[in-house]
């Protein structure tokens, strides 16, 4: 199996990217594959248990107890859901464009998982320590649009079509604000490498970029909520008006692929916010013995906090109207980010301590 992959699929790329003997290449590829699995399994488990956490947390916010039947405290619920979805029929509508209909969910899952390749989990644990990390993240989050618009188009259903038009216009509108916020982080850190961005925040709680980049931090996270089409920006799914939006025609495993992509994207946005604005794996108590040690646990705690915010928003805010969403994206977020870009670049050029000296 592995021999086949190496000889037939990867060798043209591997050979040109990595000039070395075939054994070294094979070892390197095997090493990368193992690391990929070590990253993917926690991400997929995280996706499964994020759905459980969502139902449980929203349940308690609404004074219910949420799922509690499958296993102790309902902990096996995501596994039961996954099994059930696996054994459901995948319906391909007769009017649909079959090839595109099948490609769409795969195309939306692949970038949301592949983006994890450049995420640093601590000072050394990163799969691909590349210099263009942030550019790669921006490129892959942009690709998510294709899965949605292809799904809406290929379904040949009015709800799917309307949902995907809304989703795409919304995603690209917030993509701009998000891109500007990323540029602000770049100016502050002076590097595209995500590990270097965290190292640039070394010092204390006040050295983290949330303080000098406060408006960009808020804009980035809210744009992330809009990018993933989560409540209160979920007009593309809007179950009370257009049923389920772009994935209305998908059932069974095809639907759950979309679902996994959405939750993996939520986790990605949360971990990126933690890395770029909240010091990544750095401890908030830097200098204190034991508690001040940098650790992956801090990164996971920060990520969980932002994931909790996603769920909290969903339980708290009513859905925005579409013109309000567009107004927020174009007329509020973009002006804020442009102004703050100028402010940050002035701070950097003037070398204002404690962040940029």
């Amino acid at each position: 199996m592995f021999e086949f992959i190496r000889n037939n699929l990867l060798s043209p790329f591997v050979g040109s990217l990595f000039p070395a003997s075939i054994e070294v290449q094979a070892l390197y590829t095997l090493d990368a594959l193992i690391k990929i699995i070590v990253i993917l399994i926690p991400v997929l488990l995280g996706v499964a248990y994020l759905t459980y956490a969502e139902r449980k947390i929203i349940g308690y916010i609404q004074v219910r107890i949420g799922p509690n039947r499958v296993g102790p405290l309902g902990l096996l619920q995501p596994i039961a859901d996954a099994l059930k979805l696996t054994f459901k029929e995948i319906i391909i509508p007769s009017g649909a464009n079959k090839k595109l209909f099948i490609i769409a969910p795969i195309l939306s899952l692949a970038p949301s998982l592949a983006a994890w390749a450049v995420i640093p989990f601590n000072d050394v644990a990163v799969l691909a320590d590349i210099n263009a990390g942030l550019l790669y993240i921006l490129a892959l989050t942009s690709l998510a649009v294709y899965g949605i618009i292809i799904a809406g188009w290929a379904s040949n259903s009015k709800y799917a079509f309307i949902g995907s038009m809304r989703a795409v216009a919304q995603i690209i509108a917030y993509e701009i604000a998000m891109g500007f916020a990323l540029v602000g982080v770049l100016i502050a850190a002076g590097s595209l490498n995500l590990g270097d961005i965290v190292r640039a925040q070394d010092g204390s709680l006040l050295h983290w970029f949330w303080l000098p980049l406060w408006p960009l931090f808020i804009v980035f996270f809210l744009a992330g909520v809009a990018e993933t089409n989560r409540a209160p920006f979920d007009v593309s799914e809007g179950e009370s008006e257009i049923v389920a939006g772009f994935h209305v025609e998908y059932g069974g495993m095809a639907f759950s692929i979309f679902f996994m992509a959405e939750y993996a994207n939520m986790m990605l946005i949360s971990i990126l916010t933690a890395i770029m604005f909240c010091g990544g794996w750095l401890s908030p108590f830097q200098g204190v013995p034991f508690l001040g040690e940098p650790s992956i646990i801090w990164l996971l705690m920060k990520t969980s906090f932002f994931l909790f915010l996603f769920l909290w928003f969903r339980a708290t805010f009513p859905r925005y109207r579409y013109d309000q969403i567009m107004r927020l994206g174009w007329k509020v977020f973009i002006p804020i980010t442009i102004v703050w870009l100028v402010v940050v670049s002035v701070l950097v050029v003037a070398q204002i301590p404690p962040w940029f000296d």
Partner: protein
Amino acid sequence: MLANYLPILIFLFVSLGLGCMLFVIGYFLGPNRPDSEKESPYECGFAAFEDARMQFDVRYYLVAILFIIFDLEIAFLFPWAVALESIGMAGFWAMMIFLGVLVVGFIYEWRRGALEWE
């Protein structure tokens, strides 16, 4: 250097493969009993009364055009932002002029109503 990008390529293949695998598993484990009602487009129980690929509002198209302009600006800002500390005041002011031109264009769009959704 380029070898650092190899794991990313493999990761892309793995995640594409995972997506395909899940789809195939779902396709073979699930039942497959299509009928004409089941395969018709979902429209809350009614028969579909016109083609779904209908006309849509031109403003979606306008948003896409504006997106291209602004995304290009971001592409220009990326290398500038990384190099800011080494290009000095000349580089700083050059980008401020560029941003000024961008803001003039943005105000023009705003005043012309390209950003309205009423």
